[in-house]
């Protein structure tokens, strides 16, 4: 039994690790979503964290803990001067500006000979264990969970619901938004640093626009109203391709397109019918059964 368990773990170790890494990344988008801001620069922050940690490990030979710390703090420090001008933008403008930032980071790395350009850095020592990934994830969930019930959390909620009103009530909205951007950057950087020491390699094209789209999709599918929603979404969507790979031959569709189609369909159904994510599914079903309309506006009120 234990042997089969070890076998299973050996086969799926990388998938299990990625459930944790994607959970961290989903939470990094959740931080800004929790105050109503759609900031999509996290692939860039992740790249900064990954490259900083890798260079410290491989060039400066510092202990791994210190690399991780630098990979977490540096993106947060970058987020502050970035956020000061950019967070004045609203809605999709903030999204576009931060996408632009992410692309600038990626393309700068592609054009930097010092970090081996588009090829990236390979043969990074493997220092990240699956246990470490989940410890980091647990820490992030605990931190964000604590935040939610606190005065800080209520301020974020007020900003999300009505920013001008929150400002009128004396909440320093700019400072709150900036600190959530920095916190998200730190989480993305941590995930990047962990991932680089988990997969032996980093390359700029791993940090493109589609990466941050993935993070957003994890958070939205899981549900961005509660802390564990993004984690559930990341786990669900990381496991889905594994299941689909088994299913693909049966339905006669290539695994690649099938995975994309199902991903897209899940996202569409969630945004149309479960705006609070799959974690709200049980509640919605219960509400349907008892004949009430589900909370959260799944039915349009026209």
């Amino acid at each position, binding site marked *: 039994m234990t042997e089969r368990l070890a076998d299973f773990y050996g086969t799926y170790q990388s998938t299990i690790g990625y459930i944790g890494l994607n959970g961290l990344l989903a939470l990094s988008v959740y931080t800004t979503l929790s105050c109503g801001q759609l900031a999509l620069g996290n692939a860039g922050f992740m790249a900064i964290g990954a490259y900083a940690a890798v260079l410290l490990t491989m060039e400066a030979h510092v202990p791994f803990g210190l690399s991780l710390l630098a990979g977490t703090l540096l993106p947060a420090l970058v987020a502050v001067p970035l956020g000061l001008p950019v967070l004045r*933008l609203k809605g*999709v*403008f903030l999204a576009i500006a931060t996408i632009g930032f992410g692309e*600038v980071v990626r393309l700068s790395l592609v054009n930097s000979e010092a970090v081996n350009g588009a090829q990236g850095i390979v043969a990074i020592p493997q220092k990240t264990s699956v246990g470490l990934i989940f410890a980091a994830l647990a820490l992030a969930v605990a931190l964000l969970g604590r935040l939610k019930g606190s005065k800080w959390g209520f301020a974020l909620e007020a900003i999300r619901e009505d920013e001008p009103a929150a400002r009128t009530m004396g909440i320093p909205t700019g400072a709150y938004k900036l600190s959530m951007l920095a916190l998200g950057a730190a989480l993305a950087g941590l995930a990047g640093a962990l991932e680089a020491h988990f997969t032996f390699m980093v390359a700029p094209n791993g940090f493109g626009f589609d990466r941050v*789209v993935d993070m957003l999709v994890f958070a939205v599918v899981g549900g961005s109203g509660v802390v564990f929603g993004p984690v559930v979404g990341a786990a669900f969507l990381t496991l889905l391709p594994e299941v689909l790979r088994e299913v693909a031959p049966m339905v006669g*569709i290539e695994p690649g397109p099938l995975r*994309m189609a199902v991903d*897209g369909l899940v*996202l569409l159904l969630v945004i149309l019918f479960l705006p609070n994510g799959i974690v709200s599914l049980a509640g919605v079903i219960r509400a349907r059964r008892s004949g009430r309309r589900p909370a959260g506006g799944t039915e349009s*009120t026209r």
Partner: protein
Amino acid sequence: MGQQIINGLFLGSIYALFALGYTLVFGVLDILNLAHAAIFMLATFAALALVTTFHFPIFLALPAAVLFAGLVGIVLERVAFRPLRSRADSNISGLISSLAVATILEAVALEVWGPNISRFPIGTLSDARVAIPGGVVSRLQLTIIAVAVVMFLALTWLLTRTRIGREVRAVAESPRAARVLGVNVDRVIASTFFLSSALGGAAGVLFGLAFNSISPDMGRSVELKGLAVIILGGMGSMPGAVLAGFLLGLTEVFVVAHLGASWRDAVSFAGLFLILVLRPQGLLGAAGAREA
């Protein structure tokens, strides 16, 4: 020099067409339609299928593919945008649902045509060359610039001189006021999506003809560049999108010629980023309209 200017104008006309459709939807609905690039791609495959399977000449396949793109746009609006319109966060949820549709469309193209690069058969368009002062350009490039200019003029005429154009502008100003004045808002929004997607589809077919390299992910790079163009031009501003499209095309050609190909995209995104930070209203956008 003359050659590079033509190359830049030619690339720019494709960017401008693409961005015009993008910015049209934004101007009317304040939402970013991330499926625009998928329609760009799908229209190109439609034209390819018409040319290879049904042996259409390209001058018939192009309008047919553009019409097809417009119809896909109407379906897209029904599926991904209309159900969300009454939500408070419709600009963010609409962005996400359009992303979902884009993923599904790309998956369909991947399943039908495969991940490899498809090409128009040789002889679809003449590859004759024309001498201009300072270089040689292909007739194809000049044709593409001409098609783009005709489409800009047609769109301008449509929006300023026709009833549906006036209705589109009324809805862009205020959907509620337009409804009170008897405008059928749902129909106007559907028409807007038809127009927008048709423009995106036209850009796609021209792009496919120009570079003769068609793949399910061909929309991705254009998608982000289209964003740069509409921001640079000022979101919702159609003359701005055209101007910025040509500007980006020319800039890219000159960056490639003088700095090297790998800097091409970096320059456009750095420009995008600086514009948003320093002059968020864009080149021709109205100030104070950044609250979407």
